[in-house]
């Protein structure tokens, strides 16, 4: 197996650096503020946990505290954008775009407003807060919205670059982030290319059967661990990270579906409607391929540690290996 040169060289070490990708958002937003005077930031009483505080401290005159009012925050951002500003609105994904979906649809997406929606604390790895705070439907409700892009960065480095990209690109963007510290997968100078997936691990070529593990967001780490184990045990496994969920890198899907016997997607999201569904929607038309979608199976999350929850809902490396083996053996 071959690893991408863009990966952290310590990727399989036990002392790999861990940091939440929201930290990258905070740094990226501050940098965007320095580069682009039109960037403004809004918070709905979650300035610290969305890491908007770095921007708010640097540019207090360009920061708007909306209070606990996500519906208002979305439409205020639309108004700011209509006057030429580049607003970033950050809250927990459960509340934005969860609670304010219609305001996002009508006043941001339909207006093609230049608003960036940051959904922090997405996925079940939010952990102890429980199901009320675990957004596992956000990619589904955002990717069906015309004009909207959906980003899910793998770590803090990619989140920082994606934030700068969002500031530069005109139009609505949704970026989902995670709460807890996760392994830093990439390097500071690794590239982020909008709309392009990246092959983190290429399969061993001398195997008879192979799987392409497609992940989005912070799930790449579990995908890489699983890929390593599979390659070492006689099943060829490629691991590909999709930092952009919409628009989907369909060229990459064309290639992967031709070169592998099985596509396995993994996401911290409902198995229905999210990243895996997008992959299946595309491939079913152009190159029908066996696809296993790992995600939460039509149920709500619960309290627990991130590790306990990922194991319980079948989203860790063990679950990925088990699913791949079972399907390829059958």
């Amino acid at each position: 197996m071959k690893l991408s040169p863009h990966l952290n060289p310590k990727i399989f070490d036990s002392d790999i650096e861990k940091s939440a990708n929201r930290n990258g958002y905070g740094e990226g937003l501050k940098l965007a503020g320095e580069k682009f005077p039109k960037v403004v930031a809004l918070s709905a009483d979650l300035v610290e946990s969305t890491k908007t505080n770095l921007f708010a401290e640097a540019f207090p005159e360009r920061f708007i505290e909306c209070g606990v009012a996500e519906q208002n925050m979305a439409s205020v951002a639309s108004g700011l954008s209509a006057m030429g500003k580049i607003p970033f609105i950050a809250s927990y994904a459960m509340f934005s775009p969860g609670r304010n979906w219609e305001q996002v649809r009508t006043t941001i997406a339909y207006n093609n407003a230049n608003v960036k929606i940051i959904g922090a604390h997405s996925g079940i790895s939010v952990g102890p807060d429980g199901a009320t705070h675990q957004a596992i439907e956000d990619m589904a409700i955002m990717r069906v919205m015309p004009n909207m892009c959906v980003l899910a960065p793998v770590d803090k480095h990619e989140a920082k670059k994606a934030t700068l990209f969002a500031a530069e690109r005109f139009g609505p963007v949704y970026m989902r982030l995670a709460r807890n510290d996760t392994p830093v997968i990439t390097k500071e100078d690794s590239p982020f290319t909008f709309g392009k997936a990246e092959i983190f691990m290429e399969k061993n070529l001398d195997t008879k059967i192979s799987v392409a593990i497609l992940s989005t967001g912070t799930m790449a780490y579990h995908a890489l661990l699983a890929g390593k184990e599979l390659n070492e045990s006689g099943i060829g496994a490629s691991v590909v990270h999709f930092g952009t969920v919409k628009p989907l890198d369909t060229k990459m899907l064309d290639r992967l579906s031709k070169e592998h016997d099985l596509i396995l997607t993994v996401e911290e999201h409902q198995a229905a409607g999210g990243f895996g569904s997008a992959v299946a929607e595309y491939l079913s038309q152009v190159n029908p391929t066996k696809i296993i979608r790992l995600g939460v199976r039509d149920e709500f999350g619960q309290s627990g540690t991130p590790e306990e929850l990922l194991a319980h809902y079948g989203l860790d490396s063990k679950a990925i290996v088990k699913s791949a083996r079972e399907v390829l053996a059958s």
Partner: protein
Amino acid sequence: MNYLSDSEVEKLEHKANEIRQSIIEMLIEAGSGHTAGPLGMADIFALLYFSVLKHDPKNPDWEERDRLLLSNGHICPVLYATLAHAGYFPKEELLTLRKFGSRLQGHPHRESLPGLETTSGPLGSGLSQAVGMAIAARMDNPYTSKYIYCLMSDGELQEGQTWEAAMLAGKMKLHNLIAIIDRNGIQIDGYTKDIMPLEPLAEKFAAFNFDVQEVDGHNLRMVSDAIGKAQAVYSQPSVIIAHTVPGKGGDIFERDFRWHGNPPGKGPENFVKKSEQGPAALRKLRTLSGAINAPDHD
């Protein structure tokens, strides 16, 4: 303050008449749409676009223009008619309202038509957007005299988002924000006092730190004076509660909530006589310049 002379008032009233006539023609042609709200707000729209607003119909994106947001998008026939009469697009286009391929969508879409400042329809989000615009204008110039006008219905105040926006406007003391509420007392299912009472409305907005004025929404001099006063308030956002008669301009339309969402061409038989439908409705319109000669089509 812009004190209107008698002749200016008369000119605006004639303009409002023309707008009302266009509204009825558009709705008859469309065969669906809202009647009461647009007719009730024709006077205020005429005042805003022909006397109050800094704007340039030939240059709709002029950066220094005032902004007017229509929050209750369903009364867009009055906005479209006024924009056409002001010269934003040809008046003939008004008859494409709600038709396939038209720039005049059933509810306004900013990207479709020049002169629209936003997309609206789902109620309660206009004030938030106006707050965002007012904040942006003030970020660029703390002493800005670029005013952001937000037109809202009374029924839509039942949407909680309105009050989220009001809280933020009050907190930020947005002097350049002027909300105008069409207090016509009706909504789709009945009278607001029965569906969900709003009173004491003035006190509610005062409690949210707004400067509040109440006016007769058909008395153009009174509305104009109130807007002038609102512009002069520099430490608070302003709201003008304009008491209007829904369906104003024709006896058959006035004060009946059933006209909220029905067009003149197609009133349900049980409340509109056949003899009062279609072009007959146009002939019922009161004008300052004699009867309207509207022949029946069939």
